[in-house]
């Protein structure tokens, strides 16, 4: 086989890249046992330089990333603050005191509700200048703790302001077998209902 560049010479090597036949003068040995034509040898050489530059750049980027990973006081501040904020919100959302266990429903206990309202009226009068509210809903929530859905329970209580006594409080729907209870600031009075009483 003849050399591609010198048809009068015998080819001794093949270019490792483009596979053309080369004589001893045309073949460039870049590494041990690897021969290239002049054109491919130039390309390989330039490519090697590029690889070295890219390697250096990658090393520099790694170094920068490592430097970035170093924790500064600012990073500690941000981390500690974030944890504190999370803990605070955890306490705010889930950290309230639990109500005593076994809490029963007020709906079936109008007499308990009556005493509860009586206490609320007295607290209202004590803290609001010795006056009584026009309606029981004025007591909610500061003096009477009833949820929005429980406000209808107040229908079980008769309340009216009385010029001489202050107020009168009684059960709106007492059971026929029970005694009705009438509360005023002067005291508690019981009234036997017609057709019953205990």
């Amino acid at each position: 086989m003849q050399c591609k560049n010198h048809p009068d010479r015998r080819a001794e090597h093949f270019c490792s890249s483009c596979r053309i036949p080369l004589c001893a003068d045309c073949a460039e040995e870049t590494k041990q046992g690897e021969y290239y034509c002049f054109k491919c040898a130039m390309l390989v050489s330039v490519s090697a330089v590029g690889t070295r530059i890219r390697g250096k750049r990658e090393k520099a980027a790694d170094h920068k990333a490592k430097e970035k990973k170093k924790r500064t006081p600012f990073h500690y501040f941000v981390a500690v603050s974030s944890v504190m904020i999370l803990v605070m919100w955890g306490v705010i959302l889930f950290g309230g005191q639990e109500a005593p266990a076994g809490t029963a429903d007020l709906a079936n206990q109008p007499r308990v509700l009556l005493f509860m309202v009586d206490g609320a009226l007295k607290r209202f009068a004590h803290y609001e200048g010795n006056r009584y509210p026009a309606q029981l809903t004025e007591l909610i929530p500061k003096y009477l703790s009833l949820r929005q859905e429980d406000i209808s329970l107040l229908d079980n209580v008769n309340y009216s302001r009385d010029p001489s006594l202050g107020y009168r409080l009684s059960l709106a729907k007492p059971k026929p077998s029970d005694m009705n209870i009438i509360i005023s600031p002067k005291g508690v009075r019981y009234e036997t209902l017609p057709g019953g009483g205990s």
Partner: protein
Amino acid sequence: MVVIAIIGILAVTAVPFYQTYRQRAYGAQATNVAKQLVDAEIMRYLEKNTFVPNETDGPIDIYSDTDPSDPGFRRIRDELNVTVPLGNRFSYHFSNDPGDPEGKCVTIVIAAPFKLFSNGRWDVIVKIFHDGRFMYY
């Protein structure tokens, strides 16, 4: 800017955090006082066969600004041997209901002008029966 933002968030969060913390402390205190009063009322009934206040008395009210010389406060202290904490914004209401169909009983309300419990309640209500049962509402 980031630091100022974080400090701002911390400051804004601190207010509800403090309120919850205070609510938890007051709620625990109200529950403890209620337990003491329940025990004391049951002991009183076992000894004297009557609650404080008894059937003929009107309700006893003790407010956060009540003076320790107040007759109601002194009755609770002397007859139940419980000194209810004054000046911590709690108000107490003790009432006897001789007409209750379930028999002799006393109802105690401990109220505060803010939320005491995580369920939104501002008070502790406990009813104590003559047979030693008691029920929270």
